[in-house]
């Protein structure tokens, strides 16, 4: 074995010894188990946080639905008429009776004139 091989062998042996003794030498104190136990049960704030997170999808869906109804009013409540001569009335029968006389003016509820 030449010098280089002998040096390499010595260094590897030193490394192995070093690894065997590579240690923090830290022991748990008397309060360690108590500290772990304190972290086993979640705090009330944490429980509430997780509950809110679970409800988030349903809340977002509800907000979306409400916003949709707020920005998309139904046709029954529309005040704008389709044509200027079309009489506006909430009574469908009266609307049918009056709808054919679109050239006459002065009818109640009529807009656009």
């Amino acid at each position: 074995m030449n010098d280089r091989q002998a040096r390499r062998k010595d260094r590897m042996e030193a490394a192995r010894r070093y690894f065997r003794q590579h240690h923090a030498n830290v022991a748990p104190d008397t309060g360690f188990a108590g500290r772990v136990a304190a972290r086993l049960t979640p705090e009330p704030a944490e429980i509430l946080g997780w509950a809110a997170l679970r409800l988030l999808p349903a809340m977002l869906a509800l907000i979306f639905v409400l916003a949709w109804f707020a920005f998309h009013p139904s046709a029954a409540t529309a005040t704008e008429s389709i044509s200027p001569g079309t009489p506006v009335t909430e009574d469908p029968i009266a609307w049918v009776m009056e709808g054919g006389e679109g050239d006459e003016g002065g009818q109640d509820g009529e807009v656009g004139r």
Partner: protein
Amino acid sequence: MEHVLSMTAPPRAESRIDEGEAALIRASLGGDSGAFSELVRIHQHRVFRLVGRFFRRREDVEDLAQETFLTAWRKLHTYGARAPFEHWLTRVCLNCCYARLRRPGPGEDPLPEEGAGDGATPNPDVALDLEASLRALRPEDRFLLLLMYGEGWTTAEIAERTGWSRVNVKVRAHRARRKLQGLLEVEP
């Protein structure tokens, strides 16, 4: 490459589980944190000793030890009771240490002070040199070498306790040794 160590304890034909410990485990599974605290007291020294193999600062050792037990609490339902609880807990501990070693970012243990020597070698300069070589290794290699040379585990024992295959451990061990040799051969 297996990045996550298997959490399931290996099956064994002959396994002896302490009855008192089995009762504590059953109570813990039922949500009894007091019973689990008792398990912590039973195994805390072993966990500290194993974590201390990989980390030098006290706060890091305590942090990883707590993480080990909290992970064990969350995953206790995966313990199959086919092997001693100690073996399962060892695997949880190694999993936590391995994940922390591979995590990028600051948190490296500081190198020992020059001349301070930890008793491993009579020459503190050699100790510093070895520490620097150890630091230059990849976390995966450092992990394996510390189990082999530090804990003195055989390839079979490492495979059993980590859940890796024996072939995997042998290949990794061979590569880690070659890398260490390469680092040590670099003349300062």
